[in-house]
């Protein structure tokens, strides 16, 4: 099995990818009509064609070679490295807070992915990273991610001084504790990534008052205004899910972003169709 996982190789070889891509395209086209006849096997038939469309755009853009995918610049992504650099200059650790929703949730997976990228920047800048958690799964995944990032850069000393730990799983005691940690460490860069609830402003206002550069990324729409007012940079909406791919900047990852665009254009078309229908 080991041979299948060469460096820079996706899990599934590209040749195999082409077959489902073609199949999916046909399925998408035919599913909306076929679904009606097959309700005893299929559930959620109104959702299925849309899902197949997403799947198709995902696979198709994996196989088509686009010469150069240029991603629009996202200030928050560029600011991440600068923020770590600033911490290094000031000799302070970087603080990374993951959201309250624990790991089987996709927002937590995305947060840990970004944590990995930030950690590898930290490893090359020789800056420790501190991350308090409110959930054990997220903590364990973060530990693995950070160990991996520092080992890759052969920076073994900092694994120990980088601290990933659990505080408590209840919302406001966690917020109070993070404020206390912020006060103790006086970090010059704080990252907030994941799903946040009301505690967002408690965390960011205090971090702001301590003069830290704050970069946030979240999928909780209700909290975005507060991240905007109290943080320096924010990964809005789906930018949060693509950030780790943009930092990595490898071709396969960029292709998934192009696929995301394609899926969104289809959604926009559906929206236009639905809007037009409302006048009939």
């Amino acid at each position, binding site marked *: 099995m080991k041979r299948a996982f060469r460096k820079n190789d996706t899990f599934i070889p590209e040749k195999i990818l082409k077959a489902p891509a073609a199949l999916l395209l046909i399925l998408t086209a035919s599913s909306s009509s076929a679904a009606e006849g097959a309700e005893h096997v299929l559930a959620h038939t109104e959702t299925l064609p849309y899902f197949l469309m997403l799947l198709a755009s995902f696979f198709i853009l994996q196989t088509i070679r686009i010469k150069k995918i240029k991603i629009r610049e996202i200030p928050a992504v560029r600011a991440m490295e600068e923020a770590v650099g600033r911490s290094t200059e000031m000799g302070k650790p970087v603080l990374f807070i993951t959201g309250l929703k624990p790991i089987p949730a996709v927002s937590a997976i995305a947060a840990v992915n970004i944590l990995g990228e930030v950690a590898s920047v930290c490893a090359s800048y020789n800056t420790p990273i501190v991350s308090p958690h409110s959930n054990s799964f997220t903590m364990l995944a973060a530990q693995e991610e950070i160990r991996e990032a520092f080992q890759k850069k052969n920076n073994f000393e900092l694994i120990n001084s980088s601290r990933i730990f659990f505080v408590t799983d209840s919302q406001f*005691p966690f917020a109070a504790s993070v*404020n206390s940690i912020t006060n103790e460490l006086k970090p010059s860069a704080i990252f907030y990534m994941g799903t946040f609830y009301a505690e967002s402003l408690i965390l960011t206002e205090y971090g702001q008052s301590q003069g830290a550069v704050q970069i946030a990324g979240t999928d909780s729409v209700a909290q*975005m205004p507060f991240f905007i007012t109290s943080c320096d940079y924010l990964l809005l909406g789906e930018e949060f899910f693509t950030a780790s791919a943009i930092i990595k900047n490898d071709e396969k990852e960029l292709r998934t972003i192009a696929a995301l665009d394609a899926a969104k254009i289809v959604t926009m078309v559906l929206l236009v169709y639905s809007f037009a229908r409302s006048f009939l």
Partner: protein
Amino acid sequence: MILDLITLALIICIFSFLFKDNPFFKFTERLLVGVSAGYGFLIIIRDGFLAKFVDPLRTGDLSVIIPGLLGLMFVFTLFRRTAFLAKYPLAFLLGTGAGMEIGPRIETSIIKQISAMGSHVSGPVEIINRTVLFISALSSLYYFLFAVRKNTKFDRFFAGTGIVFMMIAFGATFGYTVMSRISLLIDIIDSVVLRFF
């Protein structure tokens, strides 16, 4: 009564943090962390360990041994040599978690919402409102496109429209939230502080 006084004192300790970080706040914070972690632990023992692990074992449902073993692998992170075993339960969680969220998400956040945009409208006010709603949704979706946007006049205008609408929505959310947050303070003052006067 004594309990209420202790609560009041601890609340004052928490509010004192607004003024300056101080030992009293630190003490209260540590106390809270300990108590809430302990309480959370007890709850998961009752609702998780006993209800989802011990009870099924008692009734002869042996399938819970699988997550039990996966869970035990986490314990191996305590030893350097076996730490890699933690990746197996994580892989299980990542895979199933990623798969679970797809279907319901699409249904509630996309399919239902798109069809809500297609409900019938009549009368000039409704038509204008629906059009504004449509433009705000479309332009902000456009703003978030990553790869296909080119720097043209149309692009700047349409994405700019998206930003303006986003700002309106964010401003409104902020404004409305002020009320929620002040309510919390009112409640605390009303139910705890003013009781003693």
